């Protein structure tokens, strides 16, 4: 199971993570922050994490789950 953590305190709502997710896992919430729409689809490619200019997303395997 993948896990996507979004740190809203550092996120500037630029939308890069949402736009370039190959599996469309993320979407914007009503305030523009990214939120996980469909975790099942996440392939763990980390492109959102790597392209985030603000170090605000972490993709990992959920070891507890």
């Amino acid at each position: 199971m993948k896990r996507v953590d979004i740190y809203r305190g550092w996120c500037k709502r630029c939308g890069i993570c949402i736009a370039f997710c190959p599996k469309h896992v993320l979407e914007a919430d009503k305030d523009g922050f990214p939120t996980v729409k469909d975790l099942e689809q996440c392939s763990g490619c980390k492109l959102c994490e790597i392209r985030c200019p603000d170090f605000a997303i972490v993709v990992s395997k959920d070891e507890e789950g």
Partner: protein
Amino acid sequence: MRETSHLVHKYLRPTMRFPHIWCPGCGIGIFMHALIRIIDRIGYSKDDVVLVSGIGCSGRLPVYVDFNTLHTTHGRALTFATGIKLAKPRLKVITIMGDGDGVSIGGNHLIHAARRNVEIASFIINNQVYGMTGGQCSPTTPYGARTTSSPYGNPEAAFDVSRLVEAAGATFVGRTTVYHTTLLDRLIEKALTKNGFAMVEVIAQCVTYAGRWLGLASPAEMMAWQRDNSVTVEKAKELNETELAGKTIIGVLADRERPTYNEECTKLRTQELKV
């Protein structure tokens, strides 16, 4: 520990205020992320890394990271870096510059650093505009572009930064965009491990200003533009001039060997002067 958390906690200064100062969607943050990722992958000791920057948006990068960091004057990062590397050769010296910073006011230092071949890994974050001062045209702003200092269109031609530095003699030259993450990582790694002067031109989006004259409103649109207007070195060989018009050629543009200034110093001491 989760990988990014690990990078954040290992390399960012806990005493600095985050989020950082750059605008939403700024390409500099993507580059900074890649830089610490590769430094971690190579495994340098933090004590041995010196990060030197000039003035402008890119100049603010070093203060966030836990290395020996030096925020110098406008355009002069390479001169300070030269002194550091020659005085203490064991240090890994990295410079971060912008296009206005590194190519306009620092243009002379850039070509001479490339010619001189002091082992410095330099990165020019090219967003084609002066961001910090409010969107004036830079030496890499395209011809005709309207900026705050070229309200009727830029009357000047743009520099091809990579070709300039290659012609000046740099032992490694690469170009990428921040969209091309795999290439970005690869070029950073090659530049950092190159025994000689290395320069990577990193095409990055300035959403606030450059985005305005490109008519692209969002960071994602600007990165899509990077994706759609870049051609790899390999692919470019198969295309003719018309097909290449307006395209950015990305990849390794030069990779060659030449004695470094430090090696020349050692040679002088051991072979000529026998000291």
